[in-house]
C-alpha cells in the first residue's frame, strides 16, 4: 500500500494479484473464482487499445511497457479506492479501528470502559441517539456506569431522594445482565422504579447548608460486584495500593484490573481501595455528565459486603463520615 511520506521503496506492499475483497466482510465468498475482482486497474487495461498495452504475459516483467505503466497507474487508483472505501466505512462504528471508535465516542458523548471490547463499544455507539434522547434518566446513568465497568458483573443501584417520611427514596437497580429480576431485590420486576414502602428506609442525613437542590433531587450510586478490594486503613503501614508488592515497585503491582490497560495506563492509586485514580476519575466523570443539572449525585458507594450493607441502611447520620457502614467506600459525587 502507499504510505504517505514513505521514502522510495519503503512501506510499499502492493503486489500484483492482490485481491480487493470486501473490507466490510472479509469472509465474503470470492465471487471472482480466485481471480482479482474488477478494479480500476482492470477497467483501465480494458479501455485502452491492445497496441498501447503491448505484450501481455503472466509474468509482469515480460509484459510490454505500456502494460506496465498502465498497471502502475491503475494500481494506485485501486489503492485510493480502498482508502476511500475503508475511510467512509470507518465512520460507522465497528468498521474502523480503535482510533476511529475513540473519535466517534467523543463526538457522540459515550465514554468507553477500560476493559470494554471494541465490538461492545461499537454496539453502544450505534445506539447513541436513543441513549442521548434518554439523557437525564436514572436508567441511562446506570447503563453508562455499568458499561464503563464492563469486564466484571457490576450491579448498579441508584437511589433517588433522601428518604424522608414525606418523600420516600426511589431505587433503580440494573443487574449485570440487564433489566432482569433478581431475587434479593424487593419484590418487583427489575427494570421498574421501586418505591420504598418504609419511609426512612434510605435516610442519609441532612443536606449541606445552603444546598440549591431539593431533597428529592439527591442521588446515591451503589456499586456491587466490582473487582476492587479494601486496601486497609490510613493507619496501616506501607504504601497506598500496596497489597501486592511482589514487584518491589514503589506502588506495588496495580490491583485494579481496569488499570494498566492501554486506555488507562495511569498507575496512580487511591486511598481506601484498590481502585485506580484514573478509573475513579472516569467513573465520576461519567456520573457528572449523565446526572441532570437539577439533581446532585451525593456519593458513589462502593460496596464490599452486600449482605451487611443492605441490612445496614443509612440511619440519618451518613452525612458524617464516621457514622457510615465500614463495609463500603464512599466517593463524593
Amino acid at each position: 500500500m502507499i504510505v504517505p511520506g514513505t521514502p522510495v521503496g519503503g512501506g510499499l506492499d502492493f503486489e500484483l494479484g492482490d485481491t480487493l475483497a470486501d473490507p466490510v466482510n472479509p469472509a465474503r465468498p470470492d465471487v471472482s473464482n480466485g481471480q482479482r475482482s474488477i478494479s480500476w486497474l482492470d477497467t483501465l487495461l480494458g479501455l485502452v487499445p491492445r497496441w498501447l498495452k503491448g505484450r501481455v504475459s503472466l509474468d509482469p516483467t515480460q509484459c510490454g511497457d505500456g502494460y506496465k505503466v498502465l498497471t502502475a497507474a491503475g494500481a494506485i487508483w485501486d489503492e485510493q479506492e480502498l482508502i476511500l472505501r475503508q475511510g467512509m466505512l470507518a465512520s460507522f462504528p465497528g468498521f474502523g479501528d480503535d482510533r476511529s471508535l475513540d473519535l466517534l465516542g467523543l463526538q457522540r458523548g459515550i465514554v468507553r470502559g477500560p476493559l470494554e471490547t471494541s465490538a461492545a463499544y461499537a454496539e453502544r455507539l450505534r445506539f447513541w441517539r436513543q441513549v442521548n434522547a434518554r439523557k437525564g434518566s436514572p436508567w441511562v446513568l446506570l447503563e453508562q456506569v455499568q458499561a464503563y465497568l464492563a469486564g466484571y458483573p457490576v450491579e448498579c443501584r441508584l437511589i433517588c431522594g433522601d428518604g424522608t417520611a414525606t418523600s420516600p427514596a426511589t431505587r433503580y437497580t440494573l443487574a449485570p445482565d440487564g433489566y432482569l429480576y433478581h431475587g434479593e431485590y424487593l419484590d418487583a420486576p427489575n427494570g421498574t422504579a421501586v418505591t420504598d414502602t418504609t419511609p426512612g428506609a434510605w435516610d442519609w442525613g441532612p443536606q449541606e447548608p445552603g444546598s440549591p437542590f431539593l431533597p428529592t433531587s439527591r442521588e446515591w450510586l451503589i456499586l456491587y460486584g466490582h473487582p476492587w478490594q479494601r486496601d486497609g486503613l490510613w493507619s496501616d503501614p506501607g504504601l497506598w495500593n500496596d497489597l501486592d508488592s511482589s514487584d518491589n515497585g514503589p506502588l506495588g503491582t496495580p490491583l485494579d484490573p481496569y488499570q494498566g490497560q492501554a486506555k488507562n495506563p495511569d498507575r496512580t492509586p487511591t486511598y481506601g481501595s484498590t481502585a485506580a485514580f484514573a478509573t475513579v476519575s472516569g467513573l465520576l466523570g461519567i456520573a457528572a455528565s449523565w446526572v441532570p443539572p437539577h439533581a446532585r449525585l451525593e456519593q458513589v458507594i462502593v460496596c464490599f459486603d452486600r449482605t451487611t450493607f443492605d441490612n445496614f441502611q443509612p440511619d440519618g447520620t451518613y452525612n458524617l463520615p464516621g457514622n457510615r457502614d465500614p463495609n463500603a467506600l464512599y466517593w463524593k459525587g
Partner: protein
Amino acid sequence: MPKHLSFEQLIAPIQALDVRKTLYTILQRFGIKTTTWQPGDPTRTTLQAVSLLHSAHTYWASNAIRMKFLQLAKGDWARATAKFDYGTEGNSAQPAAGNVMFANSTGAPMVFAPEDITIKYTKTNADQSTSVYTYHNTSSLTVAAGGSLASAIEADSVGRASTLPAGTAVTLSPAINGLTVTVPSTLLGRDEESIQSLVNRAMLAHPAASRLSPAEVYQDVALRVTNADGSLICGKVRVVPGNPVRVLVESISGGAIPGDANDVNTPLGRLNVAIQTKAVTQGVTAVVQNVIILVVGLTYTAFVRRDSQYSDDQVKDLIATSLYDTFSELPIGGFELPTALVDPSHLAGSRWVFLDSLKAAVENPTGPDSNVTNPVFKAVVTTDYAGANDLLTGDGVQMQLGQVNATVVRL
C-alpha cells in the same frame, strides 16, 4: 485477504512526490529503468500529471473521510456534517454591539429615536492608514439635561473589525451640540463562527433531544433562540446545577441580553420562554439570568525584540486582538479550580480568571504555536481589578475588557 488500513493512513493525504515515487517503484519492480527517462519524456510527463491528479484526489478523499469525524473535519466539510447530521448551522459574523455612555451638557433634555445618532470611530491601523467604522443607537433614549445615560449601539458593519475598544475617542457624525459619547467597555464584533465552536455546539444537539432536562438541552435551546428578525440572542450560556436550575446567559455581542425575562416581547423574555417550554421538564424549575458584567482595565508592558519587524503599533494591534479573543472566550463565571489544585488563596468552590491566561494573550499575540514570528518575549500584566493577582469572579459574572494601557519596550 484485504488490507486493513489504520485510521491515520485513511485520513492522510498523499503528496504528488510520494505518488510518483510509488509509481516508479512499481515500474522498477516490473523491470523498467525509469532513471533513463529524460525530462520531457512522454511517459515521465504523463506519470507526473497522473501523480498530481492522484495527489489532489487524495486531499479531497482525506477531507471526505474526515468529514464524519467532527473533531477532524475541516471547513465546509465540517459545516455540512454539523448541519445535516446535527442540525446545527454556523453563526454568521456579528456586529459589535453594547452600551455606551451618552452625556448631555446642555440645559435641556435630548430625545432620540432609534438610529438617530451615528457614532464614528476612526481607527488608525498599524500601517498608519485609517479605517472608519460607524455605529447607530438601537433604541430610543432620552438624555436628561446635564445628565448621562447608558444606551445600546450597534455597528453598521459586521465582524471583529467592527470592535470598539474601551476608552476610544469617538465622534458623532453629524455632531450634535452638547452630546458626547464615551465607551466604558469594549464592544466586540465577531467573525463568522469558528469550526471548533460550531463543532462544540453541534455535539450538544443530540443530548438536547432528551425531554429529561440534561444540561445540554438548556445550552442548545439558549444558543438557538432568535429574535423576530432571525438574529441570534444568546452567544454564551452556563448552566448552574440546582433546583431551580440557573441558566446564565450572555448576549451574542458579549454583554447582558436586553429586556425582561418576564416580557416575551424582549430578547431576554423570548429566551426565557424557550427555556421554560423546551428545556424544563416536570418537577424541575429553571431561572434565566443575565450575566453581571464586570469591566476590567488592563495594563501591560510588552518586551519586544529590538530587531523585530513589527512596529510598536503593530505589536499593540496584535495584542489588542489577542486580548479581545481571550476575553470573548472566557466562560461565564470564569473557571473553578479542580479540588486537587485548591490552595489557601484559591479556596474550593471559588471561581477565577487567571492572570496567567491574560499574560499569555499578551505574550503570544500571534498564537500559541508561533514562537518564530512572535515579536513579544516577555510581558508584565496587571489589572485594575486585582493588580498582579488572579481575578476572583463569581457564578454569573462575565468579565469584559475595559481600557488597556499598553507600553512596548524594545530590548
